């Protein structure tokens, strides 16, 4: 099936070996989303820097597209994003690109730390970049707003997925949400579990290929961004990110649910 398709298949993640060879061919744009000072110390060869905080300071499509253009990305540039935060920050940047209409974007399937412990190359040279032009063709089918979510969550077949830690979920969540903490998504050496495991886990939780899924987390859509790509990795494509997440939901004073009559916080050993 795949061989007949003319369109290049974009995988949600790319492994370290493949990235190494693509860097040698200079056929990709690699984005490092860690803090700038960390990037300056060293990074994957040829990677450019886009700290997540920089993007989030104003992630309107108009500004975001300028940022990506200044990193030398046009509509056709294959992009790979990495971080050192189990893939969550990278996911948020990758999702933004996708939302702008850029289809060829993947996450590196290991963190920068793991990349280094694999003994792969790193560098402190900052590449020179020529700005490029990128169009804006927004992809509303991967974005959920509070209004959209409020209406959709009542519908059959829509699953609302909370990716915060269990205790936070128990304490307060959007009514009707189910909880898959972001830690569930990773394996010990990859930012995402192998597909068969991920599939089994997600199926056990009642998520089917026909489901429409809306993911959210605490505030800016990072943990839930990772879940967005976790679901994508097992070919669940009808996924929306509620990018403003629970922080906005609470500010809007919308209704929340709580696990009542249990003092679960006292079980944790912090």
């Amino acid at each position: 099936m795949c061989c007949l398709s003319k369109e290049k298949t974009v995988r949600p993640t790319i492994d370290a070996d493949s990235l190494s060879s693509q860097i040698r061919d200079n056929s990709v744009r690699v984005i490092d989303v860690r803090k700038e000072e960390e990037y300056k110390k060293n990074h994957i060869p040829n990677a450019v820097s886009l700290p997540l905080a920089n993007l989030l300071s104003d992630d309107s499509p108009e500004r975001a597209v300028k940022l990506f253009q200044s990193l030398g990305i046009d509509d056709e540039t294959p992009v790979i994003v990495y971080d050192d935060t189990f893939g969550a920050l990278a996911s948020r940047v990758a999702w933004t690109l996708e939302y702008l209409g850029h289809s060829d974007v993947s996450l590196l399937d290991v963190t920068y730390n793991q990349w280094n412990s694999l003994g792969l190359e790193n560098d402190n040279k900052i590449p020179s970049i020529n700005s490029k032009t990128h169009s804006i063709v927004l992809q509303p089918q991967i974005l959920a707003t509070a209004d959209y979510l409020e209406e959709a969550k009542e519908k059959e077949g829509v699953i609302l997925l909370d990716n915060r830690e269990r205790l936070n979920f128990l304490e307060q969540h959007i009514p009707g949400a189910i909880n898959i903490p972001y830690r569930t998504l990773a394996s010990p050496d990859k930012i995402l579990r192998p597909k068969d495991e991920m599939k089994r886990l997600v199926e056990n939780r009642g998520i089917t290929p026909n489901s429409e899924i809306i993911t959210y987390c605490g505030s800016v859509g990072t943990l839930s961004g990772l879940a967005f790509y976790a679901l994508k990795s097992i070919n669940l494509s009808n996924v929306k990110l509620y990018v403003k997440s629970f922080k906005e939901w609470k500010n809007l004073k919308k209704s929340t649910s709580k696990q009542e009559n249990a003092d679960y916080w006292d079980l944790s050993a912090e």
Partner: protein
Amino acid sequence: MSASKLNQARPDSKSPSVNWAKIEEADNFAKTVKLYRQGKYDEDSFRRFRLQHGAYGTRMTNDYAMVRIKIPAGKIYPTQLEKIAQLSEAFSIGSAHFSTRENIQLHWVVLEDVSEIMRGLAEVGLTSREACGNTVRNVMCSPLSGVCAEEKFDATPYAIATAKFLLRNPMNQNLPRKFKFNFSCCEKHGMVRMCDVGVLPETREIEGKQEKGFKIFLGGGLGNKSFVGYQLEEFTPEEDLLYTSIAVLRIFDRMGDRKNMARNRMRYLVNEMGWEKFQNLVLKERAVVRATQSVIVKLDVDPIPEEIKKPIRISESGGNSVPDGYARWYKTNTFNQKQDGYQSVFIALEAGDITANQLREIAKIIRDYSAEGMARNGFSQDIAIRWIHEDDLPKMYSQLLQVGLAKSGSLTMASPIGCSGTTSCNLALTNSHRLAKEIQRKFLELKLDEEDDLRDSTIKISGCPNSCGQHGIATIGFFGGGSRVGKDMYPTYLMSLGGRSDGETMLGINCLRIPAKKVIPTILKIIELFKQNKKDADTLSSWIHRIVNGSEDSDIKSINDFKQILSPLTVPPTKDEDSDFYTDYGNDSSYHTKTGKGECAA
């Protein structure tokens, strides 16, 4: 090339000696949960199935379970701790809980994720099978077996062999009620009289030859009604251990009360029948078992002793500064092994709770310092890392200090036991779990862990009358309830005094109902009274022991005298005077009791 190849595991990581897991059970569990959710499995059969596989219900919800991981004889290995850490982050609350029966529990697990935990456990040879339900629960063994100077021989291989024989054995899959085995090193360290079958190593000499065997205690146990076990006979020869176990299980299976859930532990059967009759029955049944085994059934006791290999130090000396607090920690957390130059270190947890990161650190510390390359779960919601060379203790202490695991007082009264209480249990009336932590913090703040005359006393707290917190055998024990002023409720604990679980095992005597927020002042008052009235060699527990037995001659001669002195502490203030009095620990809202259906927790 993968990350794991480069980051090689440390060479001295010991692998588990027994694989307790069966991966098919995870598949089966996942399938059954689906059927249950589709309504194809009725509530009762599903509950039985779930409990058989170690998934216990959670307070006020059907969506979550607690997974109880059995650690037979308490033997736990670094790779297993690391796996549990990972599972707790992925599927639980990022912390795990060490129970009083050498289990490790993961709470607030989504029922649909339980099978994933079972899979993860199988990777490291662990199981939750028969950790709950009407089965033989985790077979315990004293964390000091093998290193205790008082022991006749190491009971550990017998505990492991017993667990191996009984796990998944059709004989004991559907008992009238749960069934508990405890092995110990000596009378002091293992609670052999407080379980269904307690086993203590014993030797005798016959014609100049040393023969191994056991003292076996039957019919004890803590619960809504607690009983002290009886010794079956003077000496049970080694080969009779298995036959005795089978005989007792058969009798219980046949005669146990299957109708009355509240009274069907074996201790009730023993109590109703009378000990002598029960004893005769066991001896007869054992003769039948011995004579009718079609094949000779024997315990598979591993005769090879654990390899003891002192870990190689990279920097053997240098930087020998002793960190702050070391002396106090050394005094209150280490146990002198019978083997020269070695100590067992008991890690004090708060009511058994430990974070995922701390579990990983413990795994590292075991690899770095323990000459046996593993650890032992203790009886007091704690963990013992044994075979630490005396010279390594300061370094190990600083490492523990860095990760918040160097609390002092683990072997003293300053480490109270608290069951899970209202943090997760359906039956709980009070937050006993948090109260235990509050008492520990107060004791450490007042440095009471350093006082020699308090050392052998204990505080144990249950959130309801069902004794999971073992209050009945505590020097000062508490179990939770609610009291009322008009329409306002406040949390209380019934306090008992003088319980113990050693050679002179007895249950504590009920004293007074103490409001939750007055428990700490009450304990401190008792300590103050003790200091005023003690005789030279007294410890708090020996003093209280004399009082409850009516043989004390100082100002306080009886439980009644305690009642009189302490009763002012129990008078409720009005809500206006002190609204905090009407709330439980860990909860700001007004206290009220709320319980669901019990499934028999520990």
